[in-house]
């Protein structure tokens, strides 16, 4: 059995290591099998370098017609499974055709790589960056090894960041005024705000603030929209009266948020909404949804 398995196994072991693997920050990403794993974290215009080592199994030799490493940025739409769209593709040739008898290492470097989009793993779409080592062979299939890494991009704090303030209501029934202190929040931000009850003629049971993510993929008639509620945060428990002012203080850090992505390569976009929901005693829901822009702030700033 072992022999048989061995027969179909690739004849060598390929390992990719980053030159700064020990110091580089890591981020957790979800693998295809659903498990979380830690991968190195890069930012746009960083230099990605390291070493590829190819080690044939016990005395086997690997004949090849060339070894190369690619850096790929791919968008994968799940409804179009199998088709990756590469928006970034860089190649470094590592070796000329020949044979490898024993462990052999190649240095590689992609300097100041432009990686305009962040890694993203959504409901219908995935954006990922990989390093792909290919040992090309004649007659037999190529030997390929992937290594995924994560990319994040920071945005400077917006210069204009107005608060969101609005009066909404149902005539002669319920009038509220709500205010969120900003319209753009960074991922570890705190939403401060308040809800002011101008008129209450219905029995409100409770009130909560939801954070919703709206992911739309594809374009034209093939647009798929998926909305997820990421957070439900109770603001009030009980019946308010007119003139009541309910404070909001919602920490965003516990939730897995990403920045707002608008039209990533014409393939998809991700937007965030704050949804204020009031529930009355007959469980009717009254809500008002407001878009907020999420951005990633450089940490330690």
């Amino acid at each position, binding site marked *: 059995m072992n022999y048989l398995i061995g027969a179909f196994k690739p004849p060598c072991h390929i390992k990719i290591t980053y030159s700064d693997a020990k110091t580089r920050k890591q981020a957790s990403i979800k693998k295809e099998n659903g498990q979380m794993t830690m991968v190195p974290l890069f930012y746009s215009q960083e230099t990605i370098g390291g070493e590829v080592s190819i080690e044939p199994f016990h005395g086997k030799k690997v004949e090849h017609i060339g070894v190369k490493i690619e850096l790929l940025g791919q968008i994968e739409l799940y409804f179009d499974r199998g088709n990756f769209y590469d928006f970034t593709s860089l190649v470094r040739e590592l070796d000329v055709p020949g044979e490898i008898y024993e462990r052999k290492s190649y240095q590689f470097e992609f300097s100041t790589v432009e990686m305009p989009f962040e890694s993203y793993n959504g409901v219908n779409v995935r954006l990922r960056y990989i390093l792909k080592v290919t040992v090309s062979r004649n007659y037999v299939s190529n030997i390929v090894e992937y290594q995924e890494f994560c990319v994040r991009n920071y945005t400077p704090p917006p210069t204009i960041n107005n608060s969101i303030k609005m009066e909404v209501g149902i005539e002669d029934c319920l009038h509220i005024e709500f205010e969120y202190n900003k319209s753009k929040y960074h991922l570890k931000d705190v939403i401060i705000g308040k809800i002011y009850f101008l008129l209450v003629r219905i029995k409100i049971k409770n009130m909560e603030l939801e954070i919703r993510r709206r992911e739309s993929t594809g374009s034209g008639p093939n647009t798929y929209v998926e909305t997820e509620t990421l957070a439900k945060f109770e*603001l*009030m*428990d*009980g019946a308010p009266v007119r003139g009541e002012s*309910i404070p909001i203080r919602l920490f965003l*850090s516990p939730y897995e948020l990403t920045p707002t992505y608008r039209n990533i390569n014409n393939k998809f976009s991700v937007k965030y909404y704050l949804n204020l929901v009031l529930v009355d005693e007959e469980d009717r829901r009254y809500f008002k949804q407001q878009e907020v822009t999420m951005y990633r702030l450089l940490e330690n700033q």
Partner: protein
Amino acid sequence: MMLDAGGEDEEKWLAEGIAGLQHNAFYMHRALDSNNLRDALKYSAQMLSELRTSRLSPHKYYELYMRAFDELRKLEMFFKEETKRGCTVIDLYELVQHAGNILPRLYLLCTVGSVYIKSKEAPAKDILKDLCRNVSWVFNIPFVVSSLGVISLKSVGISCLILVRSMKDGGNWCGWLGNLEHASVGKRHCMIATQKGMVARDGDGVIDAVEFVLQNFTEMNKLWVRMQHQGPVREKEKREKERSELRDLVGKNLHVLSQIDGVDLDMYKETVLPRVLEQVVNCKDDLAQHYLMDCIIQVFPDEYHLQTLETLLSACPQLQPTVDIMTVLSQLMERFCPSFFKWKLFSKLSHAIGKVIDSQPDMPIVGAISLYVSLLTFTLRVHPDRLDYVDQVLGSCVKKLSGKPRIEDNKATKQIVALLSAPVEKYNDIDTALKLSNYPRVMDHLDHSTKKVMAVVIIQSIMKNNTHISTADKVEALFELLKGLIKDMDGTQDEELDEEDFKEEQNSVAGLVHMFYNDDPEEMLQIICTVRKHILLGGPKRLAFTVPPLIFSALKLVRSLQGHDGEAVGEDVPTTPKKIFQILNQTIEALSSVPSSELALRLYLQCAEAANDCDLEPVAYEFFTQAFILYEEEVADSKAQVTAIHLIIGTLQRMNVFGVENRDTLTHKATGYSAKLLKKPDQCRAVYACSHLFWVDDQDGIKDGERVLLCLKRALRIANAAQQMANAARGSAGPVSLFVEILNKYLYFFEKGNPQITSAAIQGLIELIVTEMQSDNSTARPAADSFFASTLRYVQFQKQKGGAVGERYEHIKV
């Protein structure tokens, strides 16, 4: 049985709650043991979620709460250790706020808050403020901050009575009680703390303490006010009761404020009072406002109130209209009474109120007036003897009102009525009120109908207290007040007047006229002239009501003069009956010019009689003349004529002042009128009544038997004619009763010894009646029959009685 079922359900719910709580507590313990912060938070939040129920009664809820509370203590220990292990408390403070549900979030927040305060990493007051801000947004949990009360005591040395309420299910009263305990504990701590001067030592500490209690007071009051809106309407009454039981808890905040050593006058003035008043005004709840105003007045020292009168008073007009500001203020003012000189206080109050009103030009007029009302109430209570103060208050009110259009606002009007009623009620004596020069000026600002109401109030007060108004000046002043009733106001003609109301008003005015009295005839005459002057302005509708009492009042004066005839005679005495009669004549003339001729006629006759008693022949003659003229010209209705002629005859019969000539003229006229009445029976009766004009028993001069007989004969003729007319017109006999009546007259004069009336004539008349009666048997006339029968019986009786009269009857055969 329903209750039992409910109880069983509750047991079940409680058991479920406890089970859920214990389940999560178990996992929480495991997490605590393994120092797993994330799990500890997760399970403690889940555990606390069991407290979100609103199905349990307070008692059961309390049981559940106590279990959760015990668990939280363990969690608190864990947090404390966690901070020693390097997790910063601020991180913890943020972490617990990630909880999605508000109730677990707040419990956890308080638990960490306690650790936070003890860590001294941030000022305790900031933490407490932050906690407090969160408390009010949960409305159905009773206990969140009960532990906080203790924490803050230990840490800051100030008391906080954190009120956490449960209102979703009509109130978890155990929760209240629980807090009440903490509250009392808190107070004790506070006392200790303040006694030791812990707070006072550090200036900032005082401000923190005050700030905290104030904030606490605000939140607590909001919750307290909100209670009334929770739960079903039908239980409103019950809730109100519960609310008033809870008020002490709110009030305790104020008490605590007053106990804090560092709260001096300046701080009270600058911080405490404005903040408290702001909350009181803004809560817009009458129960709360009344109680809290009372509280403020009770707990803080007099000296503070004196220095802040303006601030305190300026809040008053902003309170709900149902709040009885007067009670509130008079309590305040009563407090001052023992401790200050009264005069000083009045000027101070008056000054303060004036300033408040001046400084708020847009204050609604009703607010200003209500302030004056309370000042007035105070003045009346404290200085009942200082009428000038009262007048001063009214004066400032007038000043405020002047330049303003007439008041349309209902509430303001009510306040003015209150303002005006107060002195009247206080003094029970309109005399005093009449001395207030500003009184009528205030009244001028009322609309017509309110003016009337006020006037009626004044009149009622006079009537009730039987106050005599004894000078013309007062009468003048009083009428100035009563203008609304006395005459038509401009622009009110169109107003639909309720007939009955009008009558009632005018009747009360009429009654009032009788309350004017002075023993001195001269003054009384003055009064009468004044009254006359005013009532003559009243227009046709009123005169009918108001003239008669005036006339009678004047006649009373005449009669009293008559009594003093001997002393009072003299040319220089202006008050003579003659003069009064002149006035009366003119007055009645006014009445006759309006269509109240019958009334005028009666009054003329009354006057004539009075003149008769005064021996004023020409005057009496004049009155009669007037009466006759009225009769001729104005009395057209035949029935009224009958009544009038009988009145004239009756009065004339009693007159003894006339000389022969005058009397002849008048009697001749009267007889003439009698014969000219429309209906024969009326003619007949009037004519036989006239017979008395010629035979007055106690007057020697007037015993003219011949003319008596003439009258009676004439009456007979008329009766005959009536009979015939009846026959001709209806084919039946006329009224035999007329004959019987005439017979009775015959008998009367016969007995009086009129020589012209002979027994033969009587005999003839009797026979005539008998014949008449027999000739007509067709109609039954029981009344006439029995009348005749009794007349005959009387004749029999007189015959049998014998004596001089009996002898005269002898010749009459029945």
